[in-house]
């Protein structure tokens, strides 16, 4: 569904990604693991259109989308839930969800999608009129994911969804990911929580210093010594 070939990208003069190539198939859960600063967030930002690659190609369902704007990627159904969530702090939970579905693809069915999101995350319904900035960390993460779901993604990229969350909530989020896959959503998971993310994935990529150093199924990567080395930077 998504093919990335030879992407080079960075910020200003610094090159972060070097010749990165990955592939994501429909209805898969694909993991991107690696140490802090390895370039995982940069890659998902490139995929969502926030950063333009300096070279390389991105193909989505056969259509070339290299360098497309964030607006175009959202209209194609590529939705990013960024690290740090990026909620609109002064808007209520409901408003944040509403604006998640504002793009023309998801706008017509917004009410129905909203009901679905409240079913997945009942706590968001309870706090629907509360300002997003006053929610707890776990609630904010659920809101961020819910907001992403409002855009009716065909490919949902989650950047560090478990960051700063307790184990119960993390388990909940992973459960939701499996549920989404059942419903036909393809998921790209960027995580430092290596064990759980590789366990849930169909396959994964290990990134070290901006380059893909390893690729395999979840269990293959978990057993590989090089994964541990890249992750811990040893």
């Amino acid at each position: 569904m998504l093919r990335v070939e030879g992407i080079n990208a960075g910020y200003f003069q610094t090159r972060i990604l070097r010749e990165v190539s990955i592939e994501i198939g429909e209805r898969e859960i694909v993991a991107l693991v690696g140490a802090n600063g390895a370039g995982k967030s940069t890659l998902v930002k490139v995929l969502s259109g926030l950063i333009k690659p300096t070279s390389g190609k991105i193909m989505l369902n056969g259509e070339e989308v290299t360098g497309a704007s964030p607006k175009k990627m959202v209209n194609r159904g590529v939705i990013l839930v960024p690290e740090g969530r990026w909620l609109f702090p002064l808007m209520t939970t409901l408003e944040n969800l509403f604006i998640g579905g504002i793009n023309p693809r998801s706008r017509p069915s917004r009410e129905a999608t909203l009901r679905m999101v409240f079913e997945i995350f009942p706590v968001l319904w309870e706090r629907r009129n509360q300002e997003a900035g006053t929610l707890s960390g776990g609630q904010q993460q659920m809101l961020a994911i819910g907001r992403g779901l409002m855009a009716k993604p065909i490919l949902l990229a989650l950047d560090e969804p478990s960051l700063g969350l307790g184990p119960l909530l993390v388990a909940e989020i992973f459960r939701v990911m499996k549920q989404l896959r059942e419903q036909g959503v393809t998921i790209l998971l960027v995580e430092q929580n290596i064990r759980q993310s590789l366990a849930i994935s169909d396959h994964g990529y290990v990134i070290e210093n901006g380059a893909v150093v390893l690729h395999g199924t979840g269990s293959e990567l978990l057993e590989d010594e090089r994964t541990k080395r890249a992750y811990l930077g040893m």
Partner: protein
Amino acid sequence: MLILIGQCLIQGLMMGSIFGFVTIGMVLIYRVTKLLNFSHGAWLMVAMYISYILFVKFRIEPYLSVLIAFPALFLLAALVYYVVMRPLGMKGHIIMMCQVSLGLLWILENSALLVFKADYRSVQSVLSNSKFYIGPLIIKTPLFIAFLTVGIIAIVLGWVLYKTDFGLSVRAISQHEEAAKLMGINIGRVQLLVFAIGIAIMGIAGPLLVPWIVITPHAGAEFTFLGFVILILAGLGNLNGALIGGLIIGIAESFGGTFMPGALASVPAYVIFILVLCFRPQGLFGAR
């Protein structure tokens, strides 16, 4: 004496609502495009001259000239933004955008000077000298109409901001622009519209002022300056604060004009401003 104070208060409240109205446009533009618009008041002056020409040449009542001034300003502002501001903004040259707005100010004021000279002009419309009484207090009708109108438009703006998808986009961009991009919002288009509308509403305020304010090429300057004062007084980027700050400054100006000797009329307003900066530099209403 009591009556005089009452008169000052009423006058100040109504003038203040107009100052606040001008500031709201500046706040919206600042929050969505990050531009501090030095030319803001000058557009008010442009609208006043449009109203003046329509009155003198075609006998069109100032209040009707809104129908021409509003779209004219909207189109002109949209053009300026699209051609000049937007390319700069997309490359992140915010300071240059502010400089461009300064250049715009000079172009607008000097064009007016060229065409109309520095003479004071005024329009005597049917309502120019009309007034009515609430108890012992005199209320000038055109001022009251201006007060009502800006109040209504402020309510409409509030409705748009909080009850429509467009308003949601505007608030999103002002709270977190990068996140707004991820929502699929067309940032450039919203910024263009906010700039154009923020200036077009000067096309409503201008004609409102024409029946009772003297028109000169520099008429807008005071509004711009006070606009910045109120902007900072309220706390950069606060909309409700802009209205309330406007009322405060309006009342201060009114009392200053009545009780202080001529040249010192604006002193009370600036004293309040400086005091707020000293003791609450983030503005009366804080960061947002």
